């Protein structure tokens, strides 16, 4: 009986350790949202027509502001986006460059008797420091709904 329990526990831990993300049980910010937003924003950057891809773009990644009510590890979020951009081979990152990425994550939460409604909006801008022009800008949105049960939990 004991060994069976340990077996299940280990299996459970292993699933998490493998980095297979589950759809969360909460409307709040979860690990899978990191992946979805970073994947969409990076594919938007790489298919942009306003960024010049003829040479490697050297950028620096400034702050992503957290304007949500949740506690979110924004450093981790930044690193996921940087990793994806670097893997594409089109971007290099250093501390002080002429082009800077900066962004903001905001949320909106509404609730009534039957549901919880959470909305996350991420906006990222690429700014050219020399001219001050925003070369590229895009948003990614996520909306999660939890239908409350009147009986039970």
């Amino acid at each position, binding site marked *: 009986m004991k060994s069976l329990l340990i077996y299940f526990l280990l299996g459970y831990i292993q699933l998490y350790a493998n980095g297979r993300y589950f759809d969360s*049980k909460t409307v709040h910010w979860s690990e899978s949202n990191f992946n979805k937003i970073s994947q969409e924003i990076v594919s938007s950057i790489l*298919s942009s027509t306003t960024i010049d891809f003829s040479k490697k773009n050297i950028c620096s990644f400034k702050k992503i502001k957290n304007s949500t009510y949740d506690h979110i590890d924004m450093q981790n979020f930044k690193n996921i986006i940087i990793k994806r951009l670097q893997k*594409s081979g089109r971007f290099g990152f250093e501390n002080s460059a002429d082009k800077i990425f900066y962004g903001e994550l905001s949320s909106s939460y*509404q609730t*009534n008797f039957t549901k919880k409604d959470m*909305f996350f*909006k991420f*906006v990222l801008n690429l700014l050219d420091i020399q001219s001050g022009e925003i070369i590229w800008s895009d948003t990614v949105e996520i909306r999660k709904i939890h239908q409350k049960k009147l009986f039970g939990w």
Partner: protein
Amino acid sequence: MKIILKCAFWFLVLFLTSCSKPQSNRNITELNSIIVNTLSSSKNIKSSSISKRFVNDLLEAHVKVENFSHNRYNDIEYCFKWYDRFGYEVSEDLSIWKTLFLDELDVRNIRGLAPIPKVEKFRFYLREKKESSIVQVNPKSIQDTDLYYGVEELYAFTEGMATGMLQSEIFDGTKVIDIREIENRTDEHIDTKSIGDSIRVAISKSGRAKFIDYQNYKKYIKKISGSTLSPDYILNGSIISVQKRDNHFYRITLNLYNLKNGLISWTDEKDIRKRSLQ
């Protein structure tokens, strides 16, 4: 005799394994890219017409998904997997499952962009999502959870304003616009900066104007160089609300000031009234 028996045995094994496999249809096209659709046939969703092209040297895949039924779905997931010239999967950690939102009789063209340059083939997977208490919905769907300012208003305001602006002849692709504060004159918390961001994204995607962000630009720059763009127009505005017990009213007004002559070149407003039936 032995050989015939052996053959019959293996034939039986093959037959049984092919029967036990889940129902799936694989369409192999001349592009050597594959659609794997494991949805149950009761859903009546068909995926067809693969096409691909190269955008900025990266493979861009397009798959058409059609919903032939009169139901709406938000419990379907899709995923692109990417392969190099030799058929090896590349960067598995960068392929993730995403929710697909399908309306009644909807036709969606799903686009996937390869994460790295050397990709030449792809596979497109469609599957059903596991039951969970949280559902991801299309952000633009109307939920109307309560009477206060919410996501529906954000989309209605930004889309109404952006389409109104793009109809004006001011936006010819050469003007430089700076989006300043949209004042929140209501008594609730409204993220008005988010409205400005969405308007900027909508217009800059159309390529009809250039944008500078003076507030943030100042923060990041140390020395002001001579090549800095100066704004031709400044956009600002306000949101007001009138709240009654069973209905709420919101109005957004935006003004575009011409900095050369000080005139308001364009102005527009949009109203929303929400009423509770309870």
